[in-house]
């Protein structure tokens, strides 16, 4: 029987091995996830909840989506030399070594960059023409959002067979995630002005109904995927990957608790104009945003530093 390491030893060893270069890659990946999901989710939000001019203005999506897309583009391009640098031993010379940059680009990572950059540029272009040609801007935004999501299917697990099924699943997963993450800032903003209370309450109630479906699918898929990745539950406690995943699950549980609190208590209270309901709901959404940031950071750490098989 193999002796099990003391609790937390695998995680502490992993942290000890994580150097500054790796932390840079983790931070860049987490920030890219966040900005790309906010940009894509902003497009979803506009499609689902758009149409009320006052509400549309209050969401701030007209500046939020291009700002997030621009930031995501910068971070995407930053990840390229960071990856080359790591592959060459963690030096800046390696980061700008043309042969290593070409190696990264010549393959799955290059396809990811092309898809994501095209999508993000379309989102930026849509912002540029939205005043003159709103129909064209809407179509370009939708295409851009889909391309950004497709970029995630160019690397990692989803590149295995059966390709079409895996890519479809990942798109479903990321599309739902973007809907949730991308809605938080617009919901926070529209819940502020008192003159928008009625339309904001309608949007919040509708978001709660739609998010329930997305969250249920995310939980089911996440639990099954964790079990498959770890080949059982024991590595969840005794491997570095499992321990980081546990931290992520703990943050996710807190997030789900808040989402449930919003759905069944705070949003109905907001809709009923209950005392202090507005402040409580906005504080809860802000906490959700912080938890999402933590989850994306843990996800980036998980995918950058370790693998299920160690």
């Amino acid at each position, binding site marked *: 029987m193999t002796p099990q390491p003391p609790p937390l030893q695998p995680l502490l060893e992993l942290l000890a091995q994580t150097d500054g270069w790796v932390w840079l890659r983790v931070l860049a990946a987490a920030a890219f996830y966040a900005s790309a999901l906010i940009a894509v989710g902003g497009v979803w939000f506009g499609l689902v909840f758009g149409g009320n001019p006052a509400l549309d203005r209050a969401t701030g999506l007209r500046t939020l989506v291009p700002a997030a897309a621009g930031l995501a583009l910068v971070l995407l391009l930053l990840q390229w030399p960071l*990856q080359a640098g*790591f*592959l*060459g*031993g963690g030096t800046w010379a390696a980061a700008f070594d043309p*042969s*290593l940059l070409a*190696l*990264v680009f010549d*393959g*799955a*990572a290059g396809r*990811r960059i092309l898809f994501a950059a095209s999508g993000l540029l379309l989102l930026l272009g849509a912002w540029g023409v939205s005043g003159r040609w709103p129909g064209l801007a809407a179509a370009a935004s939708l295409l851009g959002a889909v391309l950004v999501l497709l970029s995630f299917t*160019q*690397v*990692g*697990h989803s*590149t*295995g*067979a*059966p390709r079409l*099924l*895996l890519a*479809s*699943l990942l798109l*479903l*997963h990321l599309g739902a995630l973007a809907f949730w993450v991308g809605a938080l800032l617009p919901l926070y903003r529209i819940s502020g002005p008192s003159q928008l209370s009625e339309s904001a309450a309608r949007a919040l109630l509708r978001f709660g*109904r739609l998010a*329930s*479906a997305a969250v*249920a*699918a995310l939980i*089911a*898929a996440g639990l*099954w*995927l964790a079990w*498959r*990745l770890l080949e059982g539950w024991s590595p969840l406690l005794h491997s570095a990957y499992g321990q980081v995943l546990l931290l992520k699950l703990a943050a996710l549980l807190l997030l789900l608790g808040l989402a449930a609190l919003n759905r069944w208590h705070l949003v109905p209270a907001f809709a009923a104009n209950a005392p202090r309901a507005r402040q409580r709901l906005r504080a809860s959404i802000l906490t959700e945003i912080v938890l999402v940031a933590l989850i994306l950071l843990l996800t980036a750490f998980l995918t*950058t530093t370790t*693998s*299920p*098989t160690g």
Partner: protein
Amino acid sequence: MPCLRCIPRMALALYLLLATPHLLAHAQPEGSLPAHGSTVDGSPDRIAVWFDHPMRLTLFEVIGPQGVVPLNPSPGRDALTRFETRPATPLGPGNYTVRWRGLASDGHVMVDEIHFTVR
């Protein structure tokens, strides 16, 4: 019951997941020469690492008591499932670490260390 309508979507998601036997097909190291944690008598004439899927090695170095060990050959950038090299000069007694980094065909960056001792 707001979730009743999402059951078909959840069922589809679960079906897609369960129907994906190669979902977790990362390239992984399968073994090395000398083996990780082993002790060898005298300098090994070969140092090798092999994988279950093609890997493009970008860094392969052996570090011993005297620092970085010159190797012949160094890894190229071609995708391979086995890389084998020889120390340019015999390894003296001591602890050695093989460090490698590489890019798997699915775009994942892989990294590992192998430790062995020469007696």
